[in-house]
């Protein structure tokens, strides 16, 4: 049993380390696979103009053959190269943008997960009622609208036509705000991108939680819990929902690729100064060191989050920890 318990956490760790190495290797070797002279190939069509010294520096960085291990070392030392479009080190740009993305993503995920889970559980409990049917219908339709479309619509209606919310940015520039005003201002800016993301993530969570709950509610142990004279709320959450949480966590990891893509789009759409917008600008200006740095750093963060989710799952389901 001890061996299998170790294997439970060892397998995902190994898989994620391997995935991280593959990602790092790709971002190391892909630029080197470009035909001809790197700087000409990349910056020939770019908006960035380079001085001869900068060009020489880039050549040195991308054509030196100090090898993959040296590259890994540079990643760990946060030496991710220099952005000639923004005239700043890549890591500095990355860590400037990161907090904004974190605020947006963490809030969106928390809101949509809690909301989706609770409403999904309650919907499953009221299965067959008119309210529940309507709820499932609305959620299914919402699940069919991509962030790109809902974002555009929200932007048009609430920012451009009604003018209730700002159309771009994360805060009012150069405003002389008190702390409270500043928080309010940031929330005001956060609202539309946040709503877009919540609208994108929430229906999926809702439908999953509901489906999981409907399955769990058929389990004999739920009937036993009721038979034991436990009050309905306790039966619903301590017994049924606790088990319905499991598929939700599994699927969250699988949906991540979707979610990052959506977040990139939403940040770009609302010119929110996070990683997505930074990446968009880097792509637009073909600033390769920046693209490479953001992709690699963001990927590793995603890997970290997914790995954490695996452990959450192991914590939530005692069966995994002891399964052979």
């Amino acid at each position: 049993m001890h061996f299998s318990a170790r294997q439970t956490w060892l397998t995902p760790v190994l898989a994620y380390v391997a995935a991280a190495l593959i990602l790092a290797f790709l971002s190391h070797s892909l630029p080197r696979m470009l035909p001809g002279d790197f700087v000409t190939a990349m910056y020939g069509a770019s908006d960035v103009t380079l001085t001869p010294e900068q060009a020489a520096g880039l050549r040195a960085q991308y054509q030196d053959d100090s090898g993959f291990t040296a590259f890994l070392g540079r990643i760990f030392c946060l030496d991710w190269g220099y952005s000639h479009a923004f005239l700043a080190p890549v890591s500095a740009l990355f860590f400037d943008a990161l907090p904004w993305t974190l605020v947006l993503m963490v809030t969106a995920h928390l809101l949509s997960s809690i909301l989706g889970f609770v409403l999904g559980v309650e919907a499953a409990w009221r299965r067959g009622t008119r309210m529940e049917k309507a709820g499932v219908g609305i959620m299914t339709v919402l699940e069919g609208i991509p962030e790109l479309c809902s974002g555009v619509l929200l932007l048009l209606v609430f920012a451009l036509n009604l003018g209730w919310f700002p159309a771009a940015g994360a805060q009012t520039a150069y405003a002389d705000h008190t702390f409270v005003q500043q928080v309010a201002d940031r929330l005001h800016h956060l609202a539309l991108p946040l709503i877009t993301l919540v609208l994108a993530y929430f229906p999926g969570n809702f439908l999953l939680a509901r489906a999981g709950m409907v399955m769990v509610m058929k389990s004999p142990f739920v009937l036993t819990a009721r038979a034991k004279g436990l009050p309905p709320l306790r039966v619903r959450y301590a017994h049924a929902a606790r088990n319905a949480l499991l598929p939700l966590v599994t699927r969250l990891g699988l949906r991540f690729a979707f979610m990052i893509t959506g977040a990139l789009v939403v940040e770009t759409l609302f010119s929110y100064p996070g990683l997505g917008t930074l990446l968009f600008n880097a792509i637009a200006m073909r600033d390769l060191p920046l693209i490479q740095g953001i992709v690699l750093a963001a990927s590793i963060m995603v890997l970290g989050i997914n790995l954490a989710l695996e452990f959450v799952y192991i914590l939530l389901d005692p069966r995994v920890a002891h399964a052979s």
Partner: protein
Amino acid sequence: MHLDAGHRIWTDPWFLTGASLLGLLFCLAVFGPVLTPWDPYDTSFIPLDPPSARHWLGINDGGMDIFAELMSGLRNTLVFGLTAAFAGLVLGSVTGLFAAWKGGWVDQILMRLADIVLAIPSVMILILLAAFFQPQPWVLALTLAALTWPTTARGIRAQAMTLKNRLHIQAARHMGGSSRYIIFRHLMPELFPLYLINFAAKLRMAVFMEASLAFLGLFDPSLKSLGLMISYALKYYYMDIWVHWLMPPVLLLSFLIMGTTFVTISLERVFDPRLKTAL
């Protein structure tokens, strides 16, 4: 049970709505060019001309007919989606079946490989590839397939493992059926609902990816795409273009994703609530 499910699927309103939406969009993609006399790459019209009887949705900033662009973009999006979904499905099903049938270390290696690939955020690889090499869309579609096969492989493998131990398949083996016979005569047909669900789910994911990546400017800007159209139209949001330029690609994209969503959800619900594949 499957016969019953086959019947039930045709009475499920969600499936019918989704399938008709998709059917309509497929028809538009196939016959779109016949509906309009204009070439989507013809830049000889007056830029930003509003809709007229000649140009149903007007002209964009580059002097191109928006309706022709829309049809062409829809077609490109669908081709991308179908390529990625089909390739991913084939790759995943073959791997899953193979792993389930062989078992042992083959299964172990393939599934650990699946774990690793599954962990890699596919969008990041696509961004890297697109940014460095600006490849043709089909290359990106195949790359996407190469990154998303594990979800299918896992689902197919799990189901094939349980099927493999069912009595009627054991019986076929006892009767002397070869692996080939059992895989082709029993396993593959019985997994049919799983293929459908996976294909629909993958199509949805691929269409979403294409639109988003094109919107972010990662696709060849000379090719028409719904995402790219939205991105261009947004630049002119201050002008009165949103009804005829911004909304059509937004709506078309929504309908496309909605259609695949409805079909996926309905297939999952009808065929087996436990067959959970990634949306």
